């Protein structure tokens, strides 16, 4: 690559100008306030972590981590998500705090991207982790909170899809027990969202025809509460049945929260299989091509930091939400300009200071030289006060 031009930034990194920042901040503050009102308290973790601890534990693929070396040659990573750092804190600094712990976070995270426009190498995530509660109540609470957060952020038309990794795992284990390669091949197709490939692999597998037909039929398991019932006939193994029961219970919890109009069940949704262990969910806004939130249960992660505990959580993609959020989440500020000359300085400054205490006021003061008073540009203010 040629030497960067002076206006260029590394690929995938963005500047945010005042207008965008005020929108972004308004969304973040509303979302964090919503999380706080549900008892989730915010923590901050460092931008850099060790590759061998947080880097390896995170769900981000190795090739998408930004890595660097410290002075001693130890590999560091720029945090790629917040779940692994929080797991580290829960297992170390907070190790004597009784569970369950409810924590929230807001920060920029980094992912190395392919050379291409539109993908972001740095973006903002606001999320929660609920550590130490493996119940359907906890799953339901976190999903309900994610919906409350989307509403607080000003997203109007959205859906949250629920899936459960245990359902498919149970199905595959029952029908293809002891054949991990074939299970893996099927899972990889689903992870790549390649249903054509999935059907191809199914056809090539030597197994009971009825079982194969069932595995193909699960691709249609998307809809409302009825899906839990429809899926029952495929759930021959205990693991699959338990997953379904759990999913139904989460549905009932969400019913109590009164948010089921936003929920769809989607057993074709599969997250990262080695990371997620139970309920997973993803949120979609109608006018955006990428998910605005994702989350799920990860009961194995905390053990890698030495404090085994069930855990679930989610992260909102705050900067994506900014693109779809309705404007009324932010209050338009009242912008005031105070102009003054040397003679009226004390009076002008006192007035500005008073006005700054009023809610929603943004007050700039500007010293005007003795003869420049008329040539000043004073556009873009709601009010101009002159002490001249």
């Amino acid at each position: 690559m040629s030497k960067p031009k002076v206006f260029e930034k590394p690929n995938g990194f963005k500047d945010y100008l005042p207008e965008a920042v005020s929108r972004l901040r308004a969304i973040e503050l509303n979302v964090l306030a919503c999380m706080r009102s549900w008892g989730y308290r915010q923590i901050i973790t460092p931008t850099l972590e060790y590759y061998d601890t947080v880097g390896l534990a995170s769900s981000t693929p190795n090739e998408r981590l930004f890595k660097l070396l410290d002075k001693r040659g130890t590999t560091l990573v720029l945090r790629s998500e917040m779940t692994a750092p929080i797991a580290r804190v829960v297992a170390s600094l907070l190790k004597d705090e009784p569970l369950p712990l409810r924590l929230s976070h807001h920060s920029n995270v980094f992912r190395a991207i392919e050379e291409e426009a539109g993908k972001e190498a740095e973006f903002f995530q606001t999320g929660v982790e609920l550590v130490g509660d493996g119940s359907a109540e906890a799953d339901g609470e976190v999903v309900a909170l994610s919906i409350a957060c989307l509403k607080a952020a000003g997203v109007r038309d959205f859906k949250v899809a629920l899936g459960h990794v245990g359902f498919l795992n149970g199905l595959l284990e029952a029908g293809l027990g002891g054949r991990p390669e074939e299970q893996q091949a099927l899972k990889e197709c689903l992870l790549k969202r390649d249903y054509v490939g999935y059907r191809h692999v199914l056809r090539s597998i030597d197994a009971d025809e009825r079982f194969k037909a069932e595995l193909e039929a699960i691709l249609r398991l998307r809809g409302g509460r009825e899906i839990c019932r429809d899926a029952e006939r495929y759930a021959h193994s205990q693991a699959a049945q338990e997953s379904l029961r759990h999913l139904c219970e989460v549905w009932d919890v969400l019913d109590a929260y009164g948010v089921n109009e936003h929920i769809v069940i989607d057993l074709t949704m599969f997250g990262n299989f080695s990371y997620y262990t139970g309920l997973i969910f993803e949120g979609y806004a109608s006018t955006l091509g990428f998910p605005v939130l994702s989350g799920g249960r990860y009961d194995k992660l905390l053990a890698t930091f030495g404090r085994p505990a069930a855990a679930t959580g989610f992260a909102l993609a705050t900067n994506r939400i900014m693109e779809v959020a309705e404007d009324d989440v932010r209050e338009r500020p009242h912008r005031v300009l105070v102009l003054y000359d040397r003679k009226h300085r004390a009076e002008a400054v006192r007035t500005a200071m008073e006005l700054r205490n009023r809610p929603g006021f943004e007050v700039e003061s500007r010293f005007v030289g003795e003869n420049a008073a008329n040539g000043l540009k004073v556009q873009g203010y709601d009010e101009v006060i002159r002490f001249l």
Partner: protein
Amino acid sequence: MPQDVLKVAMPKGRIYKQASDLFRKAGLPIPEDFDESRKLIIPLPEANMEFIMAKPADVPTYVEYGAADIGVVGKDVLLEESRGVYELIDLGIARCRMSVIGLPDWKPLMHPRVATKYPNIASRYFRERGQQVDVIKLNGSIELAPLVGLADRIVDLVETGRTIRENGLMELEKMFDVTSRLIANRVSYRMKNGPIQQLCDRLQAVIELGARNAAADGGHSKVLR
């Protein structure tokens, strides 16, 4: 509500005719003279759809970013582009294969060079086979490369093999079969689940019927013979 219109990215050119025939058989009211139109966006209000006429290689991009909800695209493009989209159905149309092609007297070289329109597919293929090759990206007339010594082999789509034979080349290895696929955006697949599933079911029915008829035809002609 205009929001509920299903936006379909259709590939201009070779695949379009076959795809629109298939969609028509599935009951979509696509006018016959449709493909002659020079318009880029074509509304289909009767079906509550809108066709976006795109370059085939760009179809997955439109769909990934949500500019189109679903799209029709060849497996070759999907493999080359690796986009985060759902691959829902094998439409079974525009059938061809991706192959390694060279001169009939081709022999392994110390520094092999492969010319192709599909640099990602070619690199991945040779790497998986433990071979290090230099891949040269060309934009068309790939067959020229081995004839003028730009590369010793090419990777390209083969439909009938006529172009290859006419240029004195030979198909050295078949890499994989290629057909067109119906793909969907991650969000649309959930937010517009109803119409997408309905379209899938109708297409699937037509495809299965076609396959059964072909099988029956085959049986029939055997009896006659």
